[in-house]
């Protein structure tokens, strides 16, 4: 039943696409645009997209349909977009996973840079190293000293093997040469719970998820990534300030189109996304959620992704992270 409906819709949209191909570019978009979020509703990427969705509809002059296609660490939704018509009507909004997955998995059902074309870097987000107040080592120097004196004793929670919170830890291990225990969880939610309970000692996490606990004193902040202190947590120093400038993992969010999407359509989309994400009301809301809004040109996003991919490939290979 469903496959038949999907097939019918597919054929209909194919027909539309073919009919429209000749003159679609100039008056793009003429029908609703689908933005695929390869994660569940209510997650970070979903929250980001839903926040600027109204502004994007206004900028494009067309309805924008957000579709959650979760699963396989974003690979299922991403694969869908790689197979979509390259007409600009099916797009992908994704987080750091898109830069990390090629290093983590050797059986990805697509080649990220060949099958997708970048549209815009939407936002970046710093990561914060937090700790349970009961820990002895409360500064970066103390942590490094303690981890070197007693290797394999400090415990660091993460949102899962290969998750951005795990890779931040691996980057720290790599840059400081320390040996600590990694405790993976199914998502940062349960990891935060165990950190609050003092069952694990440290954790890299997003700023917005950590802020209320920092304010209540249930956890302490050690350091944030980013070039300058974060307005949401002004008391927490940056890694660079503390003498660890190499420990600088950032989460990034961006939009992709299927490879082969006409350049002028990509340019038009990129402009619309930049306009939507930099809408003052949107910026204010997103800053509160811990995002730094960007809205870059396609090329800039592509370069950023290429350099991030190299960085994470190095981290994943050195740390021997296995996710088959």
């Amino acid at each position: 039943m469903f496959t038949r409906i999907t097939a019918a819709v597919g054929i209909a949209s194919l027909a539309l696409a073919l009919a429209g191909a000749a003159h679609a570019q100039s008056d793009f978009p003429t029908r609703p645009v689908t933005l695929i979020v390869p994660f569940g509703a209510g997650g970070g990427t979903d929250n980001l997209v839903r926040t600027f969705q109204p502004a994007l509809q206004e900028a494009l002059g067309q309805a924008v349909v957000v579709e959650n296609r979760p699963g396989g660490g974003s690979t299922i939704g991403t694969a869908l977009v790689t197979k979509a018509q390259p007409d600009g009507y099916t797009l992908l909004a994704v987080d750091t996973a898109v830069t990390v997955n090629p290093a983590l998995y050797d059986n990805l059902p697509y080649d990220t840079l060949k099958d997708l074309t970048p549209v815009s870097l939407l936002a970046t987000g710093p990561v914060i190293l937090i700790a349970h107040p009961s820990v002895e080592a409360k500064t970066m120097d103390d942590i490094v000293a303690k981890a070197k004196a007693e290797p394999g004793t400090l415990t660091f929670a993460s949102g899962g093997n290969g998750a951005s919170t795990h890779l931040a830890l691996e980057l720290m291990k790599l840059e400081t040469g320390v040996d600590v225990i990694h405790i993976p969880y199914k998502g940062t939610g349960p990891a935060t719970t165990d950190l609050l309970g003092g069952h694990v000692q440290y954790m890299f996490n997003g700023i917005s998820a950590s802020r209320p606990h920092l304010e209540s004193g249930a956890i302490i902040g050690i350091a944030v990534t980013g070039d300058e202190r974060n307005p949401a947590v002004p008391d927490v120093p940056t890694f660079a300030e503390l003498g660890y400038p190499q420990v600088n993992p950032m989460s990034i969010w961006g939009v992709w189109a299927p490879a082969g999407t006409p350049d002028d359509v990509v340019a038009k989309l990129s402009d619309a996304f930049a306009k939507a994400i930099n809408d003052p009301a949107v910026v204010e809301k997103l800053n509160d959620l811990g995002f730094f809004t960007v809205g870059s040109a396609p090329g800039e996003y592509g370069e950023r992704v290429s350099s991030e991919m190299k960085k994470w490939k190095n981290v994943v290979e050195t740390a021997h992270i296995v996710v088959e």
Partner: protein
Amino acid sequence: MDLIANLSLGFEVALSPSNILYCVIGVTVGTFVGVLPGIGPMATISMLLPITFGLDPIGALIMLAGIYYGAQFGSSVTSILLNIPGHAAAAVICLDGHPMAKQGRAAVGLVGSAIASFIGGSLAIILVMQFAPPLAKFALRFGPAEYFSMMALALLAAAILSEGELLKGIGMVLVGLIIGVVGIDVNSGAQRLSFGSWNLADGVSFVIVAMGVFAVSEVMANLEPHSKPQMVGSDFTWRELVPSWRDFRQAFGSIIRGFGVGALFGALPGSGPTIASFISYSVEKKVAREPERFGKGALEGVTGPESANNAAAVAGFIPTLTLGVPGDAIMALMLGCLMIFGIQPGPRVITDNPELFWGLMASMWIGNLLLLILNIPLIGIWVRVLKIPYAILYPSILLFICIGVFATNNNTFDILLLAGFGAAGYIFSKLGCPAAPLLLGVILGPLIEENMRRALLISRGDPTVFVTHPISLGLLLVAAAVLAGFFYSGFRKRRAGLREADTTVDG
């Protein structure tokens, strides 16, 4: 007193015309998605989430919460009438609810479940209002070692759950554990039993397993040429709705115990209504004077789990609102919704947004009352559902199940998986293998494994961690006692059986 002031603030918020409307919409939608097999609160809330962004935060939360606990309310209707659970948490209601319907006591079961839901939910609301912060603190003391011991205890309960041959029950638990293993291993990142398919990389959802082995297999069983005739219960009088004194006495204790179980499992992040209802069933069977009545239409087997799953649904808001950490996937959705509204979920929600917390609590109580008022008259209609010819009823049910399973992840593969589990469930029932232990294995297996490995990782491989933590030790001792009691009663039964066999030659 503070509580009075807080309550009056709460009711002021909840009784505003628009919020009452959201509450009514929420619980009505909740009841229907609860009754419709397969379409659970998860699918509904993820579908409706975008719509709520146009509302004010408190209204949106009242509505979503109404869907959530409303769905627990309605979910037992089809379990009782058709042996098809409305969603996973109600699977266990089938065990005794449906036999009740077969005996023509469908109305008693439905009324019992509605009242149990109401009492369980209402008590849980009082609990959350009075004790949410201390309860949240208590929940935080549950680390990996404590979770392991608790889930081990729960898995033991699965053995008690099993009907019929013990060996088959254990076998089904093991099959469940294997299914639970599918997907990316949290600790090593390796994919297990996923056969290289990305669709299996996140594991098999217990919702699909529950719908397959309980619901689809039941539909298949009705396709048999000699399948059972159209069900009893069509002749229905309103007088049946009044529970007898005997029914009441039987059910009351189970409702209170169910509330206790539900409150505990709901307050602990990571467990939730489904586990609570299964554990409650085991508890009822364990404390019953005549446990052999279970599986044959024992009212406590319906009221206990019903009270538990409603209490757990309400208590699930404790970690969500007081700590800002979601207890399950649905709570994660609601947290996401709050964040879009710019409300920072966390320890300060109660102090910073008192109208949100107290308004929600007051609305939940109003919602529970509305549900009771809504559900009792509906029972007459539900019972008449049985008059619908099976040729129309079952295909519709199958369609709803497919919609529900598809809508959760928007993935057609899940429907194929559902069909597979449906076929497997049919074969299991033909072989006399009970499905409930299988489902519990699927749910608990990953939790046990994950927490055991995590506890050992933190203790650096020292297994004494499970007995040096007091809560963990206590839970393991209870588990040992349950196991000892089980073997003792089995031993006694066997001896009694032997004696009986001696006297009655025919057996």
